[in-house]
């Protein structure tokens, strides 16, 4: 169902604010504020997910990953959804090391999206 049309921005393929805005249909300011909120909340949730996993609370960790995945899906960030789904699979397999790697990767993307959104807001591009 995803209708992503990846457009490389700042070295990362898969996120284009303009494309996303056209797909969701929300006003740019509203979308920017949602994206920022999404990135900040998701970063915090992912950090917590790693902690829960380290403490052996697999269920809590999976709930957090699911919550972030659900939000990413709703924001049409399918590349993130896929990575989060992947992370969930490896949580199930108890592969903590790889899960941490994936979460680090996802967190980097979130930081990129946040910076990109801020940059766009500041420069109106």
């Amino acid at each position, binding site marked *: *169902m*995803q209708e992503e049309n990846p457009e490389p921005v700042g070295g990362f393929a898969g996120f284009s604010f303009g494309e996303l805005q056209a797909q*969701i*249909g*929300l006003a740019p300011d*509203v979308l920017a504020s*949602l994206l920022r*909120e*999404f990135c900040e*909340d*998701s970063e915090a949730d992912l950090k917590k997910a790693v902690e829960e996993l380290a403490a052996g609370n697999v269920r809590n960790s999976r*709930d957090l990953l*699911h*919550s*972030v995945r*659900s*939000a990413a*899906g*709703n*924001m*049409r960030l399918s590349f993130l959804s896929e990575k989060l789904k992947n992370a969930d699979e490896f949580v199930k397999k108890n592969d903590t090391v790889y899960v941490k790697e994936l979460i680090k990767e996802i967190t980097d993307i979130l930081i990129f999206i946040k910076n990109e959104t801020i940059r766009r807001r500041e420069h109106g591009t």
Partner: protein
Amino acid sequence: MGLKGKIVSIDDNKLNLMLIESMLESMNLEIRSFTDPSHALDYIKISHPDLIFTDYMMPEMDGIALIKRVRETEPDVPIVMITAVDDDDSIKLSALNAGASDFLYKPLKLYEFQVRVKNLLSLRKNQLLLKDRAALLQREVETATLKIRMREFETLTIIGRASEYKDTETGNHIKRVAHYSKALSEHIGMDSEFTDALFFSAPLHDIGKLGIPDSILLKPGKLDEQEFSVMKEHTTIGYKILADSEGKYLKFGADIALSHHERWDGRGYPNRLSGDNIPICGRIVAVSDVFDALLSKRPYKQKWEYDDARRFIQENGGIMFDPQLVDAFDKLKEVFLDIMHSYDDADK
């Protein structure tokens, strides 16, 4: 409601809620968002929203459990479950069985979402209008039914009174018998439908007296055996007058007319029925009728003292009257006194 509907949105993810709020922002709606389904349920109970959106997967209570809980208090409000496209069909089926009205798939599309909200609110508006209209019609039907019932009662009372006037001119006798019978019926736990029918039909208990010659009906003093035999026919005459009717109360009146002179011990008339074989309507009217007759002056007897009349009924429990009704009669002393005073012949 207008289009300014009240919307409740439930999702454990705050961002999803914000997205929905953003998508509805331009629609001038009142939106309340909840991450905790329990708080949402509390709010729904008191605010009666027009539309509810719920996520499926939530940690404390999933969307299906939530829908079931909402349906306990809000049977009609449209509830939309937001699911992922790849969610199992069994989830959707469970949601439908729980009472979901519709589904939306993630990721939400702004225009599709807004159109769906508009349509569902429009459905809700029509639903409420229909409900109001139905309630209005229901009230009108109830009022009309009550009017018809009161007219029917008035007609029955007049017919009953006609026979009473021919008999003893105790105009309020039939009203008292109706009220005494109603009190007894309620006291022994008969349902309201039966009690109403009894109340409206009891005035017909002596309708058969219209077929009894005046020479017997109005004879001062005791009737001889043959005269009494004719007098007893007022029960079957009354039954024949009423039994073929299609009217609920008239049919019920036929049973009362036929059975109100039966006795608990089987020595009554016309069919010498005993105990529970006597229809309960006849058993009830028997107590009411005899008690009131004892307290009334008739061509063949003087009016009894109140205490003597009560004692007569009490002493005949299990003989003439159903003991359960005599027990009720005992307990309803004050009620009977009130009825007696309210429909006193001297005041009418």
